[in-house]
Structure formats: C-alpha cells, structure tokens
C-alpha cells in the first residue's frame, strides 16, 4: 500500500502512465460527449414546459457538475500536499484550476443564456447561479494567489491552504445563498429541477457528463505533464525524455 502510494507520488511514473492513457481518454471522451450532445440536441423529445431551450441542459449540467467536482478534487489533493508533501498533488492543483475556472464560466454562461427564454431576462439572482458565481470567484482567487507567489513550492502550499479554506466554506455558502434566495424570491421555478426526467433525456445527459469527465481527465494529464516538465527540468529522466522527443 505504501509502496503504491509512493509510486503514485513519483512524477516519472505518472508521466509514463499518463502518456499511455491519454489517447484513450481523448478518444472515448470525444465519442461519448458527441453522442450525448447529438442525441440531446436532435433526438431527445422536447420539454413540455420549456420547449427546446431546455436542450442547453446537456452542457449546463455537465459543466456545472465538473466545476464543482474539480474543486472537491483540488481540495483532496490539497490535503495530500499539506500532509504528505506529495509532488504530484500540488502539480494537480495548479494544472487543474484554470480548467475548473473555464467550466465554471461555461456553466454560468449557459445558465444565463438559458434564463433569457425561460425567465425573460439574462440574469436572475437564482440560488444555483449565484453559488456558481461565487465558485468562479473562488477559482479566480486560487489562480491569482498562485500567480502572485514566485516560489513554486510556497505557491503550491499557499494555494492548498486557500483551497481547503474554500472547500470548508462551500457548503456554508451554498446553504446561505439558498436561504437568502427564499428570503428575497419566494418560489421561482428552478432551471434543472424536474419532477421526473424521461429516459430519453437523462441518458444523453449521463453520456455527456461522462464524456466531459474523460476529456477533463485528458486535459488534467496533459497540463500536469507540462507542469512536471517545467519543474523537473534538471532531472535526468526529463532530460532524456525531452531529447528523445517523447511525451
């Protein structure tokens, strides 16, 4: 177990594994995502309440889901960074934060555009959208802090502390935003909450969530590899790898 853990922390081992898995992640990810989206766009039945605008769900929900789970993953990696000082963990936090930011932005953007035909306005201070907006701020903060600290190791540890503080706050933020929402806007109808979703709707949704997850895996591997090469330039194995043109 400990040996496995140690191996998992070795950048060299990760580099090899990532290079081997990345084509599969990319291929299966693209296939699943395209299948889910085409199905959702063209074949799924239209929603009896919202009409065709609901088709935005097939990208809104996956991006929102990814945005939240990326933050949770970052927090788990942050614990590993702080407790075990594992190199790969802070590489992960740094590599993945901008991806999380982009996905959060996408879920906000799609949510806002969806709001126009549904509520007749681009932006509603709805609980979900507001929470996502705050999540966007949290991502922005981690990236800004990371950029501001020159020393890589200190930056990684400082960001880890910030992400942990953030993840403790996320449930509190969510709860308080929902309470605030009921205080100011009693009973608006929610974008994604359906009493029951027919199979023709949730299967493509599931496909696109899975596809996007795999593509995120590909992105994370790629960006981690870049980060590893930058950090481990002085080691022999990176030198051999770069000179051989692999990776």
């Amino acid at each position: 177990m400990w040996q496995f853990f140690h191996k998992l922390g070795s950048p060299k081992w990760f580099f090899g594994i990532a290079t081997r898995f990345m084509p599969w992640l990319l291929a299966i990810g693209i296939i699943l995502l395209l299948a889910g989206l085409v199905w959702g766009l063209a074949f799924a039945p239209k929603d009896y309440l919202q009409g065709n605008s609901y088709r935005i769900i097939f990208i809104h929900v996956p991006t929102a889901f990814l945005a939240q789970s990326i933050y949770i993953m970052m927090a788990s990696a942050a614990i590993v960074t702080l407790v075990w000082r594992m190199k790969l963990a802070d590489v992960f936090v740094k590599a993945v934060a901008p991806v999380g930011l982009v996905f959060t932005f996408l879920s906000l953007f799609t949510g806002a555009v969806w709001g126009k035909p549904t509520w007749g306005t681009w932006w509603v201070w709805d609980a979900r959208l507001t929470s996502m907006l705050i999540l966007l701020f949290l991502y922005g903060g981690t990236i800004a802090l990371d950029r501001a600290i020159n020393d890589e190791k200190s930056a990684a540890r400082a960001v880890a502390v910030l992400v942990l503080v953030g993840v403790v706050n996320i449930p509190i933020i969510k709860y308080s935003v929902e309470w605030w929402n009921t205080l100011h806007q009693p009973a608006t109808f929610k974008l994604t909450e359906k009493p029951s979703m027919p199979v023709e709707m949730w299967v493509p949704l599931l496909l696109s969530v899975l596809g996007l997850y795999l593509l995120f895996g590909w992105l994370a591997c790629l960006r981690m590899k870049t980060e590893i090469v930058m950090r481990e330039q002085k080691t022999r194995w990176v030198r051999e790898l770069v000179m051989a043109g692999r990776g």
Partner: protein
Amino acid sequence: MAFDSFSAFIAMEGHGPYVWACYSVFAVLLVGLMIWSSRHHQAVMASCKRRYQQQESSTSARPKQAATFARVEVSQE
C-alpha cells in the same frame, strides 16, 4: 429525430439562437482550452530541448569573475 426538418432543427421553435449560442461557446472554449494546453505543452518541451542543447554546446562553464567595482567608462558626447 425530434424535428421535422433541418431548418426546424436550426430554428428550434425560436429558441435556436439561445441553444446554438450556448453550444458554440461551449465548443469554442473546450476545444480552445484543449488546443491551447497541447500547444503550451509542445512549446515547453521545445524550450527545454533548446536549453539542454545550449548547455551541451557550452559545456565548460565560464569562470566566475571577481567583483572589482571598477567604474564603467561612458563616453560623454
């Protein structure tokens, strides 16, 4: 197929602009992020390679110069 024709598919009963705007922004950002990340990776690899090659060509490190605090002559024109 939930639509009768291709033009109905594009129009989506008036919701087309919203749906297609979302999907296109999504596609542009996702593909852009993927391309940018892989370009960046290749650029980092290339710059590392250049640095290694430079190091190999100048194997003998320059001897360290002692500080003299000599004034630098600047021609006054």
